């Protein structure tokens, strides 16, 4: 496994430093807490949005910080929820009288550390709330499981909450919006290859010549089954089928669709998949009103894709269309 890095232990630090150097006017890097924060910080009247999570999913979440999106992100090391200290440091650095909302992907480690942080900072007088993201339909949500995972759908939750917070919405409203978007969002992924964590320097799992992991998690967690790669059209059929089976999207509805690369999938393949998804949804009488094609939430160097479908209401559509500005940009 070859990759561009210095010491594996410095992978996250070097990356975050690069992000800050590339955005010197708008972002600041606080190495102590792995924190990328808006230089300006949130103004007093505004709710502050923080996302933790492990690293290795870039652009999520350290590269989603900026006006109209996150106020800060304090990622842990690769695939590891951030230590409590990072979350506390980030929260104290970005607190406002209007309150702080944590956007947390539904994983054991992430939930625990944000729960602990909430206890601590609440005692310091910070009004802190949490919005959980759990869009991955690959995992059944029941009381016998740890529940659905949060994957690429978190982009929409962040985007909508970011727009609401930027407009000065009170904390209850920002949380309501986050929960509404999460409830309207379902995703599923497929891996063509495993990712290789930098420290390990080797793949987490092995897939055969034509084998894929259907429903893979963004940390290389297993999905629903190992199966054989078929055509782009059939791949989309399987993923969309699984998503819509767990989604309240019907003929006549409007949706936002994301075709998300998992790290090593070229954009030409993503557009082939998007074309399929667009046409298959159209055949089902569902209209794609907004689309997102590219890498939004990755799993290091994994070749693969996830598809996300967001059921649009007028409110969600409006929030998604508000301007925002983050490190990930073209020009």
């Amino acid at each position, binding site marked *: 496994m070859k990759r561009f890095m210095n010491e594996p232990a410095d992978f996250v630090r070097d990356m975050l430093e690069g992000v800050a150097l590339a955005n010197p006017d708008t972002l600041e890097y606080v190495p102590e807490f792995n924190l990328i924060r808006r230089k300006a910080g949130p103004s007093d009247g505004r709710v502050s949005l923080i996302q933790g999570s492990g690293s290795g999913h870039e652009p999520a979440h350290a590269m989603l910080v900026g006006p109209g999106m996150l106020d800060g992100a304090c990622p842990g090391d*690769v695939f*590891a929820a951030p230590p409590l200290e990072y979350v506390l440091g980030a929260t104290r650095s970005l607190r406002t009288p209007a309150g702080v909302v944590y956007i947390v992907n539904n994983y054991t480690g992430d939930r625990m550390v944000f729960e602990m942080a909430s206890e601590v900072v609440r005692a310091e007088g910070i009004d802190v709330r949490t919005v959980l993201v759990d869009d991955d339909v690959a995992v059944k949500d029941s009381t016998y499981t740890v529940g659905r995972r949060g994957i690429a759908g978190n982009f929409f939750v962040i985007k909508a909450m970011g727009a609401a917070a930027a407009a000065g919405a009170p904390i209850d409203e920002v949380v309501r919006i986050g929960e509404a978007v999460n409830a309207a969002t379902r995703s599923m992924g497929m891996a063509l290859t495993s990712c290789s964590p930098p420290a390990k320097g080797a793949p987490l799992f092995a897939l055969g010549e034509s084998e894929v992991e259907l429903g893979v998690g963004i940390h290389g967690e297993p999905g629903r089954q190992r199966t054989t790669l078929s055509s782009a059209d059939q791949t989309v059929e399987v993923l969309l089928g699984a998503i819509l089976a767990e989604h309240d999207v019907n003929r006549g509805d409007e949706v936002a669709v994301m075709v998300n690369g998992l790290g090593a999938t070229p954009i030409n393949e993503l557009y082939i998949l998007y074309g399929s998804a667009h046409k298959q949804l159209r055949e089902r009488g569902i209209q794609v009103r907004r689309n997102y094609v590219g890498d939004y939430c990755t799993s290091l160097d994994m070749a693969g894709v996830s598809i996300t479908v967001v059921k649009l209401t007028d409110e969600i559509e409006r929030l998604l269309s508000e301007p925002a500005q983050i490190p990930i940009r073209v020009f």
Partner: protein
Amino acid sequence: MADTTDLTRSIVRVMAQTAIDNEEYFGELDSIVGDGDLGFSLARGFEVVAQELNTTEDEDPGAFLRRVAILITSRTGGTSGPIWGTAFLRAATVASAAARIDRPTVIAMLRAAIEGIKARGKADLGDKTLLDALQPGVDELERQFTRDASDVEAIRATARVMAQQAEATATLQARRGRASYAGPRSIGSPDPGAIVVAYMMRAVSESWK
């Protein structure tokens, strides 16, 4: 008091060293059904603990363990940070409340740690977590104490049971943590967290003089 503080410090030192020495191996174990970060997370957390051990003054075991708990909680990433931090914190609380750290206190500290993990992780015995090595180990330690075994004997027996039980987690299907996503595919390899506590116990037993 100096004695039990020294003892506590040396046990924690052995645990920390185990986490640091086995960073790669524990990462390997976690990469079979998990995400491979366990070794890194524990090593970074216990590294700070090891440093602290070299710089701080003696104090009573409760206060010492609380400091360790805070270091682990605040510096360890992943699920391990909150789980291990909580365990140390609960043990510290029992130690501070006790008049002295005798055998019943040790058992009470360990039981409190176990309860802390269960509460924090919403996990129970059989879910394929470190609990499945820890709890049978503590049961064995208590049994050994009841039959008035020597320290060395008791610790050796505990280490043996924990090693067995850690290996035995291979037959379980994970119901908590990241391994649970693998469903039936989680069967066949042991829980990495369970192996970690067994390794630590073995190291403590080997270091016991």
